[in-house]
Protein backbone atom coordinates (compact mmCIF):
# COMPACT_ATOMS: atom_id res chain seq x y z
CA UNK A 1 0.00 0.00 0.00
CA UNK A 2 1.25 3.41 -0.92
CA UNK A 3 -1.62 5.53 0.34
CA UNK A 4 0.01 6.12 3.71
CA UNK A 5 2.68 8.14 1.89
CA UNK A 6 1.49 11.63 1.12
CA UNK A 7 2.92 13.84 -1.58
CA UNK A 8 2.59 17.62 -1.94
CA UNK A 9 2.62 19.19 -5.41
CA UNK A 10 3.27 22.95 -5.48
CA UNK A 11 2.69 24.90 -8.69
CA UNK A 12 0.92 28.17 -9.45
CA UNK A 13 -0.39 26.74 -12.74
CA UNK A 14 -3.46 24.75 -11.77
CA UNK A 15 -3.32 22.47 -14.78
CA UNK A 16 0.29 21.50 -14.00
CA UNK A 17 -0.49 20.95 -10.37
CA UNK A 18 -3.61 18.90 -10.95
CA UNK A 19 -2.23 16.80 -13.80
CA UNK A 20 0.82 15.71 -11.80
CA UNK A 21 -1.34 15.13 -8.72
CA UNK A 22 -3.79 13.01 -10.74
CA UNK A 23 -0.95 11.01 -12.26
CA UNK A 24 0.52 10.30 -8.82
CA UNK A 25 -2.91 9.40 -7.41
CA UNK A 26 -3.24 6.76 -10.15
CA UNK A 27 -0.04 5.33 -8.72
CA UNK A 28 -1.80 4.97 -5.36
CA UNK A 29 -0.39 7.95 -3.45
CA UNK A 30 -2.43 10.42 -1.43
CA UNK A 31 -1.63 13.78 -3.02
CA UNK A 32 -2.26 17.35 -1.81
CA UNK A 33 -1.72 20.42 -3.96
CA UNK A 34 -0.79 24.03 -3.21
CA UNK A 35 -0.97 26.96 -5.68
CA UNK A 36 1.74 29.01 -3.96
CA UNK A 37 4.87 28.69 -1.85
CA UNK A 38 3.14 30.27 1.11
CA UNK A 39 0.28 27.76 1.05
CA UNK A 40 2.76 24.93 0.62
CA UNK A 41 4.66 25.99 3.76
CA UNK A 42 1.35 26.26 5.64
CA UNK A 43 0.46 22.71 4.62
CA UNK A 44 3.94 21.44 5.47
CA UNK A 45 3.61 22.98 8.93
CA UNK A 46 0.67 20.69 9.61
CA UNK A 47 1.89 17.58 7.85
CA UNK A 48 5.23 16.04 6.92
CA UNK A 49 4.92 14.84 3.33
CA UNK A 50 6.99 11.98 1.93
CA UNK A 51 7.89 13.98 -1.19
CA UNK A 52 7.48 17.64 -2.19
CA UNK A 53 7.30 18.51 -5.92
CA UNK A 54 7.93 22.27 -6.07
CA UNK A 55 7.80 24.43 -9.19
CA UNK A 56 10.79 26.74 -9.46
CA UNK A 57 9.08 29.85 -10.84
CA UNK A 58 6.15 31.03 -8.80
CA UNK A 59 4.85 34.58 -8.37
CA UNK A 60 4.07 36.26 -5.05
CA UNK A 61 7.59 36.82 -3.79
CA UNK A 62 8.21 33.22 -2.89
CA UNK A 63 9.82 31.10 -5.59
CA UNK A 64 10.55 27.37 -5.51
CA UNK A 65 13.96 27.69 -3.85
CA UNK A 66 12.60 29.90 -1.04
CA UNK A 67 9.64 27.52 -0.60
CA UNK A 68 12.01 24.57 -0.40
CA UNK A 69 14.19 26.34 2.19
CA UNK A 70 11.20 27.09 4.39
CA UNK A 71 9.89 23.53 4.08
CA UNK A 72 13.32 22.18 5.00
CA UNK A 73 13.39 24.45 8.03
CA UNK A 74 10.25 22.63 9.19
CA UNK A 75 11.40 19.19 8.07
CA UNK A 76 15.19 19.09 7.59
CA UNK A 77 15.12 15.69 5.91
CA UNK A 78 12.24 16.50 3.51
CA UNK A 79 12.91 15.22 -0.05
CA UNK A 80 12.14 18.19 -2.31
CA UNK A 81 12.09 17.82 -6.09
CA UNK A 82 12.36 21.11 -7.94
CA UNK A 83 10.52 21.20 -11.27
CA UNK A 84 11.11 23.84 -13.87
CA UNK A 85 10.31 24.61 -17.47
CA UNK A 86 13.28 26.96 -17.69
CA UNK A 87 16.34 24.96 -16.79
CA UNK A 88 19.62 26.80 -16.38
CA UNK A 89 22.85 25.56 -14.86
CA UNK A 90 22.71 28.34 -12.26
CA UNK A 91 19.26 27.47 -10.96
CA UNK A 92 20.12 23.78 -10.94
CA UNK A 93 23.25 24.44 -8.87
CA UNK A 94 21.36 26.72 -6.45
CA UNK A 95 18.58 24.17 -6.04
CA UNK A 96 20.99 21.31 -5.31
CA UNK A 97 23.09 23.47 -2.99
CA UNK A 98 20.04 24.37 -0.96
CA UNK A 99 19.26 20.71 -0.53
CA UNK A 100 16.95 19.73 -3.38
CA UNK A 101 16.86 15.97 -3.78
CA UNK A 102 16.45 16.27 -7.53
CA UNK A 103 16.00 18.90 -10.21
CA UNK A 104 13.80 17.98 -13.15
CA UNK A 105 12.80 19.75 -16.30
CA UNK A 106 9.17 19.67 -17.44
CA UNK A 107 7.77 18.13 -19.43
CA UNK A 108 9.49 15.12 -17.91
CA UNK A 109 9.68 11.57 -19.06
CA UNK A 110 7.09 9.54 -17.10
CA UNK A 111 9.67 6.81 -16.52
CA UNK A 112 12.03 9.35 -14.91
CA UNK A 113 9.41 10.60 -12.42
CA UNK A 114 8.26 7.09 -11.66
CA UNK A 115 11.81 5.90 -10.90
CA UNK A 116 12.50 8.99 -8.81
CA UNK A 117 9.36 8.58 -6.71
CA UNK A 118 10.01 4.85 -6.25
CA UNK A 119 13.58 5.53 -5.13
CA UNK A 120 12.53 8.08 -2.51
CA UNK A 121 9.65 5.94 -1.24
CA UNK A 122 11.96 2.94 -0.96
CA UNK A 123 14.28 4.94 1.31
CA UNK A 124 11.25 6.24 3.26
CA UNK A 125 10.03 2.68 3.78
CA UNK A 126 13.46 1.59 5.01
CA UNK A 127 13.67 4.59 7.36
CA UNK A 128 10.23 3.81 8.75
CA UNK A 129 11.10 0.15 9.22
CA UNK A 130 14.33 1.15 10.93
CA UNK A 131 12.49 3.46 13.33
CA UNK A 132 9.96 0.75 14.18
CA UNK A 133 12.70 -1.83 14.77
CA UNK A 134 14.69 0.58 16.95
CA UNK A 135 11.60 1.31 19.02
CA UNK A 136 10.91 -2.42 19.37
CA UNK A 137 14.49 -3.05 20.36
CA UNK A 138 14.61 -0.34 22.98
CA UNK A 139 11.28 -1.57 24.38
CA UNK A 140 12.79 -5.03 24.59
CA UNK A 141 15.72 -3.87 26.69
CA UNK A 142 14.40 -1.52 29.32
CA UNK A 143 14.93 -1.75 33.01
CA UNK A 144 11.18 -2.31 33.31
CA UNK A 145 11.71 -5.63 31.57
CA UNK A 146 14.18 -6.88 34.17
CA UNK A 147 11.93 -9.00 36.29
CA UNK A 148 12.84 -9.15 39.96
CA UNK A 149 11.52 -8.37 43.41
CA UNK A 150 14.83 -9.20 45.04
CA UNK A 151 16.23 -6.27 47.06
CA UNK A 152 19.77 -6.69 45.66
CA UNK A 153 18.46 -6.68 42.11
CA UNK A 154 16.37 -3.59 42.84
CA UNK A 155 19.49 -1.82 44.10
CA UNK A 156 21.36 -2.87 40.93
CA UNK A 157 18.58 -1.49 38.72
CA UNK A 158 18.57 1.78 40.65
CA UNK A 159 22.35 2.08 40.22
CA UNK A 160 22.17 1.19 36.52
CA UNK A 161 19.46 3.79 35.91
CA UNK A 162 21.55 6.38 37.70
CA UNK A 163 24.69 5.71 35.66
CA UNK A 164 22.91 5.28 32.29
CA UNK A 165 23.49 8.86 31.22
CA UNK A 166 27.18 8.93 32.26
CA UNK A 167 30.14 7.90 30.11
CA UNK A 168 31.86 6.01 32.93
CA UNK A 169 32.94 2.47 32.28
CA UNK A 170 30.77 -0.21 33.86
CA UNK A 171 31.90 -3.68 34.89
CA UNK A 172 29.13 -6.23 35.23
CA UNK A 173 30.05 -9.41 37.08
CA UNK A 174 27.83 -12.41 37.35
CA UNK A 175 27.59 -16.11 36.57
CA UNK A 176 26.63 -17.27 33.08
CA UNK A 177 22.98 -16.77 32.30
CA UNK A 178 22.29 -14.10 34.92
CA UNK A 179 21.46 -11.47 32.26
CA UNK A 180 24.64 -9.40 32.03
CA UNK A 181 23.98 -8.36 28.42
CA UNK A 182 20.36 -7.52 29.27
CA UNK A 183 21.59 -5.07 31.94
CA UNK A 184 24.22 -3.66 29.55
CA UNK A 185 21.61 -3.05 26.83
CA UNK A 186 19.22 -1.50 29.34
CA UNK A 187 21.98 0.91 30.47
CA UNK A 188 22.60 1.84 26.82
CA UNK A 189 18.93 2.26 25.99
CA UNK A 190 18.21 4.41 29.04
CA UNK A 191 21.01 6.88 28.41
CA UNK A 192 21.71 9.62 25.91
CA UNK A 193 23.45 7.15 23.62
CA UNK A 194 20.25 5.16 22.98
CA UNK A 195 19.91 6.33 19.38
CA UNK A 196 23.54 5.38 18.64
CA UNK A 197 24.85 1.84 18.11
CA UNK A 198 25.16 -0.81 20.80
CA UNK A 199 27.88 -3.21 19.69
CA UNK A 200 28.37 -6.48 21.58
CA UNK A 201 31.59 -8.49 21.32
CA UNK A 202 32.19 -11.84 22.95
CA UNK A 203 35.89 -11.82 23.82
CA UNK A 204 35.88 -15.55 24.54
CA UNK A 205 34.67 -16.53 21.11
CA UNK A 206 37.77 -15.50 19.13
CA UNK A 207 41.49 -16.16 19.11
CA UNK A 208 43.79 -13.28 20.15
CA UNK A 209 44.75 -12.06 16.67
CA UNK A 210 41.20 -12.33 15.36
CA UNK A 211 39.83 -10.50 18.37
CA UNK A 212 42.36 -7.72 17.92
CA UNK A 213 41.28 -7.17 14.32
CA UNK A 214 37.62 -7.55 15.34
CA UNK A 215 37.94 -4.84 18.01
CA UNK A 216 40.24 -2.35 16.31
CA UNK A 217 39.79 -3.19 12.60
CA UNK A 218 42.66 -3.62 10.18
CA UNK A 219 44.28 -1.93 7.22
CA UNK A 220 44.46 -3.53 3.80
CA UNK A 221 47.41 -5.93 3.67
CA UNK A 222 47.84 -6.00 7.48
CA UNK A 223 47.95 -9.79 7.32
CA UNK A 224 47.27 -12.61 4.85
CA UNK A 225 43.65 -12.39 3.81
CA UNK A 226 43.24 -8.71 4.74
CA UNK A 227 42.26 -7.77 1.21
CA UNK A 228 40.60 -4.53 2.23
CA UNK A 229 40.41 -2.12 5.12
CA UNK A 230 37.92 -3.15 7.82
CA UNK A 231 36.43 -1.04 10.59
CA UNK A 232 36.58 -2.59 14.02
CA UNK A 233 33.84 -2.82 16.64
CA UNK A 234 35.19 0.24 18.47
CA UNK A 235 34.72 2.35 15.35
CA UNK A 236 31.28 0.86 14.71
CA UNK A 237 30.23 1.78 18.24
CA UNK A 238 31.39 5.40 17.87
CA UNK A 239 28.97 7.64 19.74
CA UNK A 240 27.35 4.60 21.35
CA UNK A 241 28.28 1.73 23.64
CA UNK A 242 30.57 -1.25 23.20
CA UNK A 243 29.76 -4.30 25.30
CA UNK A 244 32.81 -6.47 25.92
CA UNK A 245 31.53 -9.80 27.17
CA UNK A 246 33.85 -12.32 28.88
CA UNK A 247 36.51 -9.64 29.36
CA UNK A 248 38.31 -11.91 31.81
CA UNK A 249 39.37 -14.13 28.92
CA UNK A 250 41.44 -11.63 26.92
CA UNK A 251 45.16 -12.09 26.41
CA UNK A 252 47.82 -9.94 28.17
CA UNK A 253 48.56 -8.13 24.88
CA UNK A 254 44.93 -7.19 24.32
CA UNK A 255 44.71 -6.10 27.95
CA UNK A 256 47.41 -3.50 27.16
CA UNK A 257 45.65 -2.38 23.96
CA UNK A 258 42.35 -2.05 25.75
CA UNK A 259 43.93 -0.07 28.56
CA UNK A 260 45.23 2.39 25.97
CA UNK A 261 41.76 2.81 24.43
CA UNK A 262 40.22 3.40 27.83
CA UNK A 263 42.90 5.98 28.73
CA UNK A 264 43.21 7.87 25.43
CA UNK A 265 39.91 7.05 23.64
CA UNK A 266 42.03 6.35 20.58
CA UNK A 267 43.75 3.39 18.95
CA UNK A 268 45.43 2.16 15.76
CA UNK A 269 43.92 -0.32 13.33
CA UNK A 270 45.94 -3.52 12.95
CA UNK A 271 48.71 -2.70 10.48
CA UNK A 272 47.78 0.98 10.54
CA UNK A 273 49.73 4.10 11.42
CA UNK A 274 46.82 6.53 11.59
CA UNK A 275 45.33 7.16 15.01
CA UNK A 276 41.57 6.58 15.19
CA UNK A 277 39.65 8.58 17.82
CA UNK A 278 36.31 7.37 19.11
CA UNK A 279 33.70 8.39 21.64
CA UNK A 280 32.60 5.06 23.04
CA UNK A 281 31.19 4.03 26.37
CA UNK A 282 32.59 0.71 27.50
CA UNK A 283 30.46 -1.78 29.41
CA UNK A 284 32.41 -4.94 30.20
CA UNK A 285 31.16 -8.18 31.68
CA UNK A 286 32.68 -11.32 33.06
CA UNK A 287 31.61 -14.49 34.82
CA UNK A 288 35.01 -14.97 36.47
CA UNK A 289 36.05 -13.19 39.62
CA UNK A 290 38.27 -10.48 38.17
CA UNK A 291 39.64 -9.42 41.55
CA UNK A 292 40.84 -12.98 42.03
CA UNK A 293 42.30 -12.98 38.50
CA UNK A 294 44.20 -9.79 39.39
CA UNK A 295 45.47 -11.39 42.61
CA UNK A 296 46.57 -14.46 40.60
CA UNK A 297 48.44 -12.19 38.15
CA UNK A 298 46.22 -13.23 35.21
CA UNK A 299 44.58 -9.85 34.75
CA UNK A 300 46.26 -6.43 34.82
CA UNK A 301 45.32 -4.45 37.89
CA UNK A 302 45.46 -1.09 36.03
CA UNK A 303 42.97 -2.38 33.46
CA UNK A 304 40.78 -3.79 36.21
CA UNK A 305 40.59 -0.40 37.94
CA UNK A 306 39.85 1.35 34.63
CA UNK A 307 37.02 -1.08 33.96
CA UNK A 308 35.69 -1.22 37.48
CA UNK A 309 34.63 2.44 37.71
CA UNK A 310 31.06 1.38 38.29
CA UNK A 311 30.68 -2.17 39.50
CA UNK A 312 27.52 -4.18 39.15
CA UNK A 313 27.38 -7.68 40.60
CA UNK A 314 24.38 -9.69 39.52
CA UNK A 315 23.49 -12.38 42.07
CA UNK A 316 22.94 -15.93 40.76
CA UNK A 317 19.37 -17.16 40.58
CA UNK A 318 19.82 -19.52 43.54
CA UNK A 319 20.50 -16.47 45.73
CA UNK A 320 17.25 -14.82 44.70
CA UNK A 321 14.84 -17.71 44.65
CA UNK A 322 11.88 -15.40 45.23
CA UNK A 323 12.27 -14.37 41.56
CA UNK A 324 11.87 -17.93 40.22
CA UNK A 325 8.02 -17.98 40.13
CA UNK A 326 7.93 -14.47 38.64
CA UNK A 327 10.44 -15.31 35.93
CA UNK A 328 8.88 -18.69 35.17
CA UNK A 329 5.44 -17.09 34.77
CA UNK A 330 6.95 -14.39 32.52
CA UNK A 331 8.56 -17.04 30.28
CA UNK A 332 5.31 -19.03 30.13
CA UNK A 333 3.44 -15.94 28.95
CA UNK A 334 6.05 -14.99 26.38
CA UNK A 335 6.65 -18.50 25.07
CA UNK A 336 2.97 -19.48 24.83
CA UNK A 337 2.67 -16.67 22.31
CA UNK A 338 5.87 -17.67 20.45
CA UNK A 339 5.15 -21.41 20.48
CA UNK A 340 1.45 -20.94 19.74
CA UNK A 341 0.40 -22.94 22.85
CA UNK A 342 -2.36 -22.05 25.27
CA UNK A 343 -0.55 -22.64 28.53
CA UNK A 344 -1.22 -20.11 31.26
CA UNK A 345 -0.44 -21.71 34.60
CA UNK A 346 2.31 -23.52 36.47
CA UNK A 347 1.10 -26.07 39.05
CA UNK A 348 2.22 -25.83 42.67
CA UNK A 349 4.11 -29.09 42.38
CA UNK A 350 5.97 -27.82 39.33
CA UNK A 351 6.83 -24.58 41.11
CA UNK A 352 8.25 -26.56 44.02
CA UNK A 353 10.58 -28.38 41.63
CA UNK A 354 11.69 -25.06 40.17
CA UNK A 355 12.26 -23.55 43.61
CA UNK A 356 14.26 -26.57 44.79
CA UNK A 357 16.50 -26.79 41.76
CA UNK A 358 19.94 -25.21 41.98
CA UNK A 359 19.97 -23.43 38.57
CA UNK A 360 23.68 -23.54 37.75
CA UNK A 361 22.84 -21.97 34.38
CA UNK A 362 20.75 -19.26 36.06
CA UNK A 363 17.93 -17.39 34.30
CA UNK A 364 18.97 -18.71 30.87
CA UNK A 365 18.66 -22.27 32.14
CA UNK A 366 15.28 -21.49 33.70
CA UNK A 367 14.08 -20.08 30.38
CA UNK A 368 15.30 -23.17 28.52
CA UNK A 369 13.68 -25.47 31.11
CA UNK A 370 10.33 -23.67 30.79
CA UNK A 371 10.53 -23.87 26.99
CA UNK A 372 11.37 -27.59 27.08
CA UNK A 373 8.46 -28.24 29.47
CA UNK A 374 6.08 -26.24 27.29
CA UNK A 375 7.05 -28.08 24.14
CA UNK A 376 6.14 -31.45 25.69
CA UNK A 377 3.18 -30.19 27.76
CA UNK A 378 -0.20 -31.49 26.57
CA UNK A 379 -2.54 -29.52 28.82
CA UNK A 380 -3.07 -25.88 29.74
CA UNK A 381 -0.90 -26.06 32.87
CA UNK A 382 2.75 -27.00 33.39
CA UNK A 383 2.91 -29.85 35.89
CA UNK A 384 5.59 -31.71 37.89
CA UNK A 385 5.69 -34.27 35.11
CA UNK A 386 6.63 -31.61 32.54
CA UNK A 387 9.66 -30.69 34.66
CA UNK A 388 10.68 -34.27 35.51
CA UNK A 389 13.91 -33.83 33.51
CA UNK A 390 15.06 -31.38 36.20
CA UNK A 391 14.70 -33.88 39.03
CA UNK A 392 16.56 -36.51 36.99
CA UNK A 393 19.28 -33.98 36.33
CA UNK A 394 19.50 -33.13 40.03
CA UNK A 395 20.04 -36.78 40.77
CA UNK A 396 22.63 -36.93 38.00
CA UNK A 397 24.51 -34.00 39.45
CA UNK A 398 24.52 -35.57 42.89
CA UNK A 399 26.00 -38.92 41.94
CA UNK A 400 27.01 -40.41 38.68
CA UNK A 401 26.08 -44.09 38.70
CA UNK A 402 28.61 -46.34 36.97
CA UNK A 403 27.09 -49.72 36.31
CA UNK A 404 29.50 -52.56 35.64
CA UNK A 405 29.75 -53.66 32.01
CA UNK A 406 29.85 -50.10 30.68
CA UNK A 407 32.38 -49.23 27.97
CA UNK A 408 34.82 -46.35 28.43
CA UNK A 409 33.08 -44.49 25.60
CA UNK A 410 29.68 -44.85 27.26
CA UNK A 411 31.17 -43.64 30.49
CA UNK A 412 32.70 -40.62 28.75
CA UNK A 413 29.38 -39.76 27.12
CA UNK A 414 27.60 -39.98 30.48
CA UNK A 415 30.20 -37.82 32.20
CA UNK A 416 30.09 -35.13 29.50
CA UNK A 417 26.27 -35.05 29.60
CA UNK A 418 26.28 -34.74 33.40
CA UNK A 419 28.90 -31.99 33.34
CA UNK A 420 26.97 -30.02 30.72
CA UNK A 421 23.86 -30.43 32.84
CA UNK A 422 25.68 -29.10 35.85
CA UNK A 423 27.06 -26.04 34.11
CA UNK A 424 23.77 -25.27 32.44
CA UNK A 425 25.22 -26.04 29.01
CA UNK A 426 28.22 -23.73 29.42
CA UNK A 427 30.90 -25.14 27.11
CA UNK A 428 33.81 -23.21 28.54
CA UNK A 429 33.05 -24.16 32.13
CA UNK A 430 32.35 -27.78 31.18
CA UNK A 431 35.60 -28.05 29.22
CA UNK A 432 37.55 -26.65 32.18
CA UNK A 433 35.84 -29.05 34.57
CA UNK A 434 36.58 -32.03 32.30
CA UNK A 435 40.16 -30.90 31.74
CA UNK A 436 39.90 -30.79 27.95
CA UNK A 437 39.84 -27.84 25.57
CA UNK A 438 36.67 -26.46 24.07
CA UNK A 439 37.17 -27.77 20.55
CA UNK A 440 37.68 -31.31 21.90
CA UNK A 441 34.48 -30.95 23.90
CA UNK A 442 32.55 -29.75 20.85
CA UNK A 443 33.88 -32.65 18.85
CA UNK A 444 32.84 -35.18 21.52
CA UNK A 445 29.38 -33.62 21.90
CA UNK A 446 28.94 -34.01 18.18
CA UNK A 447 30.31 -37.54 18.06
CA UNK A 448 28.19 -38.80 20.99
CA UNK A 449 25.17 -36.73 19.86
CA UNK A 450 24.74 -35.32 23.35
CA UNK A 451 21.82 -32.89 23.66
CA UNK A 452 22.78 -29.51 25.15
Amino acid sequence: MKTHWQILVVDDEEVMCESLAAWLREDGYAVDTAPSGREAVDKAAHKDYAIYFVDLKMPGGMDGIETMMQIRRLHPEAPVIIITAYATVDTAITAMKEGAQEYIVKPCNPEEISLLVNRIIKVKNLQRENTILRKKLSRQYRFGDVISKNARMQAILALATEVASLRSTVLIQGESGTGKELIARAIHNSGERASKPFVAVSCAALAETLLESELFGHERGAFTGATQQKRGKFEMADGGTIFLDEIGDISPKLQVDLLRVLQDRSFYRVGGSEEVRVDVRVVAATHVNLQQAVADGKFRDDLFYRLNVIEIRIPPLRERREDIPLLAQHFVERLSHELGKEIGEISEGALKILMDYNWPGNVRELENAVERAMVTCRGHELTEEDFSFLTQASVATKALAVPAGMTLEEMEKLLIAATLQRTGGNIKESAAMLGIDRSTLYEKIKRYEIPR
Partner: protein
Amino acid sequence: MKYLYVGAAAEVDREALTAVRERVAGEFGVPVRELELPGVEFAFDAGRNQYGSIPVLEMLSRRSPADALKLLAVTERDLFIPVLTFVFGHAQLGGRVAVISLARLRQEFYGLAPDREVFLERASKEALHETGHTFGLVHCVERRCAMSLSTSIRQIDLKDAVFCPSCAARLRRTSRES
Protein backbone atom coordinates in the same frame (compact mmCIF):
# COMPACT_ATOMS: atom_id res chain seq x y z
CA MET B 1 -29.54 -0.62 -17.78
CA LYS B 2 -26.06 0.94 -17.80
CA TYR B 3 -23.51 0.42 -20.55
CA LEU B 4 -19.79 0.63 -21.00
CA TYR B 5 -19.33 2.78 -24.09
CA VAL B 6 -16.30 2.48 -26.34
CA GLY B 7 -16.09 5.60 -28.47
CA ALA B 8 -13.87 6.74 -31.33
CA ALA B 9 -13.66 9.09 -34.27
CA ALA B 10 -13.96 7.71 -37.80
CA GLU B 11 -10.18 7.77 -38.36
CA VAL B 12 -9.46 5.19 -35.63
CA ASP B 13 -8.18 1.71 -36.62
CA ARG B 14 -11.33 -0.45 -36.75
CA GLU B 15 -9.58 -3.70 -35.93
CA ALA B 16 -8.05 -2.13 -32.80
CA LEU B 17 -11.46 -0.81 -31.80
CA THR B 18 -12.97 -4.29 -32.12
CA ALA B 19 -10.14 -5.81 -30.05
CA VAL B 20 -10.64 -3.19 -27.34
CA ARG B 21 -14.42 -3.64 -27.30
CA GLU B 22 -14.18 -7.42 -27.00
CA ARG B 23 -11.53 -7.26 -24.28
CA VAL B 24 -13.40 -4.79 -22.05
CA ALA B 25 -16.67 -6.68 -22.57
CA GLY B 26 -14.94 -9.87 -21.39
CA GLU B 27 -13.22 -8.33 -18.39
CA PHE B 28 -15.75 -5.87 -16.89
CA GLY B 29 -18.91 -7.94 -17.34
CA VAL B 30 -20.94 -4.89 -18.40
CA PRO B 31 -22.75 -4.74 -21.78
CA VAL B 32 -20.65 -2.73 -24.24
CA ARG B 33 -21.92 -0.23 -26.82
CA GLU B 34 -20.09 1.68 -29.50
CA LEU B 35 -20.22 5.45 -29.82
CA GLU B 36 -19.17 7.71 -32.69
CA LEU B 37 -17.10 10.60 -31.31
CA PRO B 38 -15.74 13.78 -32.94
CA GLY B 39 -12.01 14.13 -33.54
CA VAL B 40 -9.71 15.60 -30.89
CA GLU B 41 -8.18 18.36 -33.05
CA PHE B 42 -9.46 20.99 -30.60
CA ALA B 43 -6.96 19.67 -28.02
CA PHE B 44 -3.97 20.19 -30.31
CA ASP B 45 -0.96 21.98 -28.79
CA ALA B 46 1.18 23.44 -31.57
CA GLY B 47 4.16 23.97 -29.25
CA ARG B 48 4.33 20.27 -28.44
CA ASN B 49 2.76 18.87 -31.59
CA GLN B 50 0.62 16.66 -29.36
CA TYR B 51 -2.94 16.57 -28.02
CA GLY B 52 -3.80 17.45 -24.42
CA SER B 53 -5.56 14.59 -22.70
CA ILE B 54 -7.18 16.86 -20.11
CA PRO B 55 -9.38 18.76 -22.62
CA VAL B 56 -10.18 15.41 -24.26
CA LEU B 57 -11.47 14.06 -20.93
CA GLU B 58 -13.52 17.23 -20.46
CA MET B 59 -15.09 16.77 -23.89
CA LEU B 60 -15.84 13.11 -23.09
CA SER B 61 -17.56 14.11 -19.84
CA ARG B 62 -19.84 16.42 -21.79
CA ARG B 63 -20.57 13.82 -24.48
CA SER B 64 -21.07 10.86 -22.20
CA PRO B 65 -24.55 9.32 -22.82
CA ALA B 66 -26.99 9.28 -19.91
CA ASP B 67 -26.97 5.46 -19.78
CA ALA B 68 -23.16 5.26 -19.78
CA LEU B 69 -21.63 3.60 -16.73
CA LYS B 70 -18.23 4.44 -18.24
CA LEU B 71 -17.01 5.88 -21.52
CA LEU B 72 -13.66 4.79 -22.95
CA ALA B 73 -12.42 6.75 -25.96
CA VAL B 74 -9.79 5.48 -28.39
CA THR B 75 -7.71 7.97 -30.38
CA GLU B 76 -4.96 7.78 -32.96
CA ARG B 77 -3.42 11.04 -31.71
CA ASP B 78 -0.42 11.27 -29.38
CA LEU B 79 -1.58 12.48 -25.94
CA PHE B 80 0.16 14.44 -23.18
CA ILE B 81 -0.44 16.03 -19.81
CA PRO B 82 1.46 19.30 -19.19
CA VAL B 83 4.01 17.86 -16.77
CA LEU B 84 4.88 14.75 -18.81
CA THR B 85 6.33 14.22 -22.28
CA PHE B 86 3.48 11.86 -23.20
CA VAL B 87 0.84 9.53 -21.80
CA PHE B 88 -0.38 6.21 -23.23
CA GLY B 89 -3.79 7.05 -21.83
CA HIS B 90 -5.58 9.08 -19.20
CA ALA B 91 -8.57 8.43 -16.96
CA GLN B 92 -10.60 10.07 -14.24
CA LEU B 93 -9.69 7.98 -11.20
CA GLY B 94 -13.00 6.63 -9.92
CA GLY B 95 -14.76 8.79 -12.51
CA ARG B 96 -16.69 8.15 -15.67
CA VAL B 97 -14.40 8.75 -18.64
CA ALA B 98 -11.04 7.59 -19.98
CA VAL B 99 -9.04 7.79 -23.19
CA ILE B 100 -6.26 5.69 -24.72
CA SER B 101 -3.94 6.68 -27.54
CA LEU B 102 -2.86 4.19 -30.21
CA ALA B 103 -0.05 6.51 -31.42
CA ARG B 104 2.77 4.88 -29.45
CA LEU B 105 1.45 1.30 -29.51
CA ARG B 106 2.52 0.41 -33.05
CA GLN B 107 5.94 -1.11 -33.70
CA GLU B 108 6.44 1.46 -36.47
CA PHE B 109 6.60 4.27 -33.88
CA TYR B 110 9.85 2.73 -32.63
CA GLY B 111 11.28 2.19 -36.11
CA LEU B 112 10.40 -1.52 -36.17
CA ALA B 113 8.54 -3.67 -38.70
CA PRO B 114 4.74 -3.60 -38.23
CA ASP B 115 3.22 -6.36 -36.05
CA ARG B 116 -0.58 -6.27 -35.92
CA GLU B 117 -0.88 -8.91 -33.22
CA VAL B 118 1.44 -7.07 -30.84
CA PHE B 119 -0.31 -3.77 -31.57
CA LEU B 120 -3.81 -5.16 -30.88
CA GLU B 121 -2.60 -6.83 -27.67
CA ARG B 122 -1.11 -3.51 -26.45
CA ALA B 123 -4.35 -1.65 -27.24
CA SER B 124 -6.35 -4.22 -25.24
CA LYS B 125 -4.01 -3.90 -22.23
CA GLU B 126 -4.18 -0.09 -22.23
CA ALA B 127 -7.98 -0.21 -22.57
CA LEU B 128 -8.21 -2.45 -19.49
CA HIS B 129 -5.74 -0.26 -17.61
CA GLU B 130 -7.48 3.10 -18.16
CA THR B 131 -10.99 1.68 -17.73
CA GLY B 132 -9.71 0.05 -14.52
CA HIS B 133 -8.80 3.52 -13.24
CA THR B 134 -12.38 4.71 -13.80
CA PHE B 135 -13.47 1.87 -11.50
CA GLY B 136 -11.12 3.27 -8.85
CA LEU B 137 -8.25 0.82 -9.37
CA VAL B 138 -4.77 2.28 -8.80
CA HIS B 139 -1.46 0.93 -10.08
CA CYS B 140 -0.72 -2.62 -9.05
CA VAL B 141 2.68 -3.83 -7.83
CA GLU B 142 2.16 -7.14 -9.66
CA ARG B 143 4.18 -6.54 -12.84
CA ARG B 144 2.01 -8.82 -14.99
CA CYS B 145 -1.28 -7.29 -13.92
CA ALA B 146 -3.00 -5.00 -16.46
CA MET B 147 -3.08 -2.35 -13.72
CA SER B 148 0.70 -2.20 -13.29
CA LEU B 149 2.20 1.17 -14.23
CA SER B 150 3.61 1.41 -17.75
CA THR B 151 5.84 4.34 -18.52
CA SER B 152 7.41 2.63 -21.53
CA ILE B 153 6.29 0.27 -24.27
CA ARG B 154 8.48 -2.49 -22.75
CA GLN B 155 6.42 -2.35 -19.59
CA ILE B 156 3.19 -2.70 -21.56
CA ASP B 157 4.61 -5.76 -23.30
CA LEU B 158 5.63 -7.31 -19.99
CA LYS B 159 2.12 -7.31 -18.57
CA ASP B 160 -0.87 -9.50 -19.44
CA ALA B 161 -4.22 -8.38 -20.81
CA VAL B 162 -5.94 -9.49 -17.57
CA PHE B 163 -6.22 -8.25 -13.99
CA CYS B 164 -4.40 -10.03 -11.20
CA PRO B 165 -6.68 -11.83 -8.68
CA SER B 166 -6.41 -8.99 -6.19
CA CYS B 167 -7.34 -6.24 -8.69
CA ALA B 168 -10.09 -8.46 -10.11
CA ALA B 169 -11.54 -8.88 -6.61
CA ARG B 170 -11.35 -5.13 -5.97
CA LEU B 171 -13.06 -4.54 -9.31
CA ARG B 172 -15.91 -6.95 -8.43
CA ARG B 173 -16.39 -5.09 -5.15
CA THR B 174 -16.51 -1.66 -6.86
CA SER B 175 -18.80 -2.92 -9.64
CA ARG B 176 -21.27 -4.23 -7.03
CA GLU B 177 -21.25 -0.83 -5.32
CA SER B 178 -21.73 1.22 -8.51
